[in-house]
């Protein structure tokens, strides 16, 4: 995960606390999404960024998992094309793994 995004998520967690915060991912690749989910929950596995060794314990969801939470028209306009293109099941499975 981008080092600057790690810092932003760390700052937001410091400000709002982890109980009222979830991370929504929009990545297009299962492994990269899994890495991002892992970074915000158990820490940066590459030990390169501000979340190295920092267990924020945040839950990450991919946008695909939140389909029922948003206006169907908006989802259709913004996400439906990518649903056809990406390996949705692999992405969701990878992200779910880090929510325990």
């Amino acid at each position: 995960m981008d080092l600057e995004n790690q810092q932003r998520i760390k700052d937001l967690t410091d400000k709002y606390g982890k109980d009222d915060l979830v991370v929504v991912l929009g990545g297009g690749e299962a492994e990269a999404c899994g890495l991002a989910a892992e970074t915000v929950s158990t820490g940066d596995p590459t030990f390169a960024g501000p979340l190295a060794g920092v267990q924020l314990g945040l839950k990450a969801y991919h946008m695909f998992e939140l389909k029922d939470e948003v206006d169907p028209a908006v989802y259709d306009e913004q996400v439906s094309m990518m649903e056809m293109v990406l390996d949705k099941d692999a992405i969701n499975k990878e992200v779910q793994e880090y929510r325990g």
Partner: protein
Amino acid sequence: MTFPVLKGTAYTLVHTPDILVHEGKLQESEMRNNPDSDYLKAIPDHLRSFEDVVGYGPNQAYIGNIHPRDLNKIEKPWYENPLKDATADGKFGSIMSEDVFYGCLKAVDMFDLVVLEAKYQEETAKKINDDPVIGKYWVTLDKLTENPSTVDEIKSLIEEKDAKPLYLDGKLVGCIKRAHEFDAALTSDVMFENLVSKASAAYVLAELFAKNDIKPKDVDYLIECSEEGCGDMFQRAGGNYAKAIGEICGCVNATGSDTRSFCAAPAHSMVEASALVQSGVYSNVVVLAGGSSAKLGMNGKDHVKKDQPLLEDCLGAFAIHVGENDGKSPVIRTDIVGKHKIGSGAAPQAIMQAIVADPLEQVGLSIKDVDVFSAEMQNPEITVPAGAGDIPSANYKMIAALGIMKKVFAKSELNQVVENIGMPGFVPTQGHIPSGVPFLGHAKEMIESGDIHRTMIIGKGSLFLGRLTNLFDGISFIVETNDGHVGDDSVDKDTIRQMIAESMKQFADSLK
């Protein structure tokens, strides 16, 4: 309307393993922050030889010796299956080695910043003077006779004056000095990147002249579209690379300017070049860019982790000649330009609608009317191990999915459409280099031979990297078969005035 045409293209690579090790930004920061890292220790075992680079399928596709679709016939991984009888000289350009390139840095340096060891300088000067392309087209080769140095002097410039070292097979052969004592825009680091970009662009411009029907004195305008910035502390990216590059090749009748939009800049520049030619402002415009030393080895950690060679070991460069309609070269349809507007939105769907579907629909065409698309043509052997996926394939799937949503294709056709409209990625991850335009050389051939009628070139840029906006960028244009019609059927204002005057006179006469 008479459209401008795609008159010629050139594509070159420079194999730069030592620049990768010392100046690639990832490696440089690792050396600074973690000098004993396992990654740095593993690098030497993962570097490729010049022969490996020449034989590598994607590189042969880039310089035009094979078609990108031929990569489908080569067993993966491509780096383990080099092409037999591959040569460094290609139909569209060539591949240069690092030892010659350092001489090129010296030959394009107007401010005595590049210092080379005397014997090495002499040997390289001979190679460059004898080179059938650079030796013929560069007019600044006398620089190679100036200020030869010693290893001791070079060492002291590095240690005491912040100069950047130039290594060849790990041996110190020169350095690049800073251009100012304290100006952050003129450090040795910045000058290194700028001279690398300039030299590699001047190399590809020479190849454009060598392999196409255009002479340096015929160029009216140059548009440079890399991602570098040159200037001083008061105007950090003031420019102008275009003129600095044209000067090296003796383009004495040309002026030029730089266009920037991250990876989308080449496509923007092609639209600008086409407009300048079609409007009659200039007859011959060249769009070009050199390579980026910062991006060398950018995904190296992932490559080493997967125990594959460091494939990001080449600088890429291209030059494209846009000229007046000659009745045979493929035309650039300036009436079908797709643009990602400020108000288009950032969702992939919105982006593809804006840059792919909208321009076609506006002239009554659909995705089905385009034979081949070329968007971000990054080599997947570089991006997949780094977790970025197969970028060209993702673009083709998005275009096909958009077609399915518009009921142009059936859902079951998705994979077939992807195969029909696409090709494997074959371009080094040099930012602006892979974005759409590397296909233009192959597209010109395919259109002229009748294999395809129409292609769409798509440039996409990540503007948020500059931290000034979260906006995305994208622009597309169409290149298609020339119908042989070169005349301008439009009527100018004077003719219209005359026609109106004559009609009014006739009307007035009828009232008499």
